[in-house]
């Protein structure tokens, strides 16, 4: 007990500036320890940020551009699946898509009669065969679908809308935008449609408010009238 008291007493006479020095030194060490990762980040971040920006900038830059292009896509069985012509194409390889200006697309129905689809602009996204994801062609501005062979036979339709998604391998076209469908015997207006490009069957999508409205021509009718 006496030794313990002696040691306690021996510790007490330490000078005050010495204890402060120890506290200061400890605090400094703790601060340095805490800020090491921050210093490391300060060194790494500018480089990483530059890399990311460079990658983003590269992604926004087309990997290739072309004018007046036409390309054909064939199915696994070797049949022509669809054909796209465009006045301008920009390919973004990293993003797996291409943008097209003034696209004109042909997709054949089951009787090999072509649908002609045109628009102001478009975007072609490549599908994934492994996951059965179909290619997708998104069209914008003045989208028009016709089938000349059927129209000549008086049974064809033409469709006008502002936006359309085409799944060329599934032979399907879809939109939720307002549509006008013209046929020699009727004109129909609605919002949204689902078109089977194989059979030509067209379903108007049921909306909460929108109704399908058709004007039928019981007598001869000119489309211009």
């Amino acid at each position, binding site marked *: 007990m006496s030794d313990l008291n002696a040691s306690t007493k021996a510790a007490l006479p330490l000078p005050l500036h010495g204890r402060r020095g120890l506290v200061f030194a400890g605090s400094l060490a703790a601060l340095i320890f805490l800020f090491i990762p921050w210093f490391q980040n300060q060194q790494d971040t500018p480089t990483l940020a530059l890399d990311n920006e460079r990658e983003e900038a590269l992604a926004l830059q087309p990997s290739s551009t072309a004018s007046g292009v036409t390309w054909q896509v064939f199915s696994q069985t070797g049949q022509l699946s669809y054909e796209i012509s465009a006045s301008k194409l920009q390919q973004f390889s990293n993003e797996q898509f291409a943008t097209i200006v003034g696209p004109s697309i042909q997709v054949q129905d089951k009787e090999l009669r072509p649908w002609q689809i045109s628009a102001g602009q478009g975007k072609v996204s490549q599908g994934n065969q492994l996951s059965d994801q179909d290619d997708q062609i998104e069209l914008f501005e003045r989208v028009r679908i016709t089938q000349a062979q*059927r129209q000549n*036979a*008086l*049974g*064809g*339709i033409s469709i006008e809308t502002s936006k359309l998604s085409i799944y060329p391998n599934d032979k399907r076209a879809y939109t939720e935008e307002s549509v006008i*469908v013209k*046929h020699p*015997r*009727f004109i*129909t207006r*609605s919002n949204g449609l689902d078109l089977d490009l194989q*059979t*030509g*069957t*067209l*379903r*108007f999508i*049921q909306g909460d408010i929108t*109704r*399908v*409205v*058709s*004007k*039928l*021509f*019981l*007598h001869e009718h000119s489309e211009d009238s």
Partner: protein
Amino acid sequence: MNTHHQNHKPRSLVLTLVVAVALTSIGWAELTTDAAGELTIEGDNAVFMQEANRIEYSGNVVAVMDGMRITGDKVAVQMTDDRIQQIVTTGEPANFYQATAESGEATTASATTIVFLPQTSILELTGAAALRQAGNTVSSAEIRYDLALGKLVASGGETTSERVRMQLTLPSQSPNNEEAQP
């Protein structure tokens, strides 16, 4: 609180009715502006089958033309290359209405199936068919009605034993006529 809620219910009901009436009026106004020879059809859904040259409407379907109105659950329009062949309306029942310009009285009809043949202006009503015109009612399995002439032919039908029933409203005689009688 309860009273507060109860007060709101009739108000909202009245508002709903007013809106519904207003919407119906707007819809009807739009539907009655058709040019001659144009039939307007409106429905919740529609499917156009290009191979069959046929368009089918479903869900509260209304067809309107020249003062004529047909309503039903489904309407199928069958077309050929150069004309509309027939318009078939089905419902429980499907209803027909035609305003008559001369007398001001309307002709109304109902049946499970109403077939309109635009080329001949003939209406064929089958299945619990009934037609009311100028206070007279005809009930039969089948009724053919000529829209242009306003004439009808009722028949019992081949598959049913239903007979034609007519309920005629006789015009009341005026006192002057009675005095002239011997």
